[in-house]
């Protein structure tokens, strides 16, 4: 289905790009004031950051990527105007085991429910399996993130772990799920 000529970082409506230290911090700072996005994206307590803080966090991130060598980070951009709409990463890679974790998110509600997630996750999986040659991919998802669960299932992931009541949000306990996809399963799907 894919060949060397098929672009890795170009999708139908979206593309992966590098971080833009000048323009991106302001946009990401806006996302971080949206508690719904933050609670879907991260297990850390939601807490907004200023554009200056976001800019610093990019520098920290890039230093970590260089030192640890177990992480790949992409910004997700709209094809038509290259504006920042989300972020995607493969991280915590264990090279000896061929195992990595994915995370992705779209900052603004206007960019959700448009099929961008399906395109971005598809591109991320192709990158993980046929560029990094990983054997399997995992994703950690809170029970309350129904959109993410639907997306991972759609791309063929299987629910593998359910950590009972591992999260406490909005005054109640929620399970923390892990979804997994093996390279074989992905290849069969990609051929079909």
């Amino acid at each position, binding site marked *: 289905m894919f060949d060397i000529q098929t672009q890795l970082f170009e999708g139908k409506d979206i593309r992966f790009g590098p971080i833009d230290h000048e323009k991106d911090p302001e946009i990401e700072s806006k996302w971080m004031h949206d508690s719904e996005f933050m609670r879907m994206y991260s297990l850390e307590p939601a807490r907004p950051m200023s554009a200056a803080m976001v800019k610093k966090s990019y520098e920290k991130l890039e230093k970590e990527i260089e030192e640890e060598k177990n992480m790949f980070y992409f910004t997700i951009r709209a094809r038509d105007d290259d504006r920042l709409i989300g972020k995607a990463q493969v991280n915590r890679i264990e090279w000896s085991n061929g195992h990595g974790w994915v995370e992705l998110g779209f900052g603004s509600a206007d960019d959700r429910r448009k099929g961008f997630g399906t395109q971005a996750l598809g591109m991320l999986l192709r990158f993980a399996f046929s560029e990094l040659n990983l054997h399997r991919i995992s994703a950690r998802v809170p029970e309350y993130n129904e959109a993410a669960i639907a997306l991972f299932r759609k791309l063929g992931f299987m629910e593998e772990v359910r950590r009972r009541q591992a999260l*406490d949000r909005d005054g109640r306990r929620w399970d923390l799920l892990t979804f*997994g996809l093996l390279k074989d399963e992905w290849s069969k799907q990609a051929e079909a």
Partner: protein
Amino acid sequence: MKDIYTGELTRLIVLEAKEGAKAFARWDRDSEFKRYLDSGAANLISSNKIEKEIEEDANENSPRSYSFGVRALTGDAMIGVVDLFVYNWTGRDAFVGIGFGERDYWGKGYGADAMNLILRYAFTELNLRRVTLNVFEYNPRAIRSYEKVGFRHEGRIRQALNKEGKRWDMLFMGILREEWMTSRFQN
């Protein structure tokens, strides 16, 4: 108030950077031990470097990492280590890790005793809501021991490990505070 650091067979002690690092550097040379402890590639690290890591952990401003050495009640030597990593304070969940580098203390209940101590610490001192662990498919002795302590199976990351040319699953197990309280009451 109870002495929360003393069990039936073992005692939790401070993990001294120097003593701990020397022990780790020695234990890591036992690759079977290391492969039970960590999923990454086995490696040999100097005690100097390990010492720095232990010190950094201990000096963290908002502590997420609680590490202890384990001693047998009958002796003075450090026989193992047990630690809690609170990856999510708001969810009050932590990962527990346990390793006994001294092989004389394998399969005799010392590990389970130290695990009971760290669970008491997790649930009655840190007031966590649950404790999680990872164990590898090729370590059935540990799996049985965790089941006996009261951990429940919560799933498996299929083929997460590649060792000796074979793929192995990584298992997740967990215990809730209520489950631990109930089992203590029954005993």
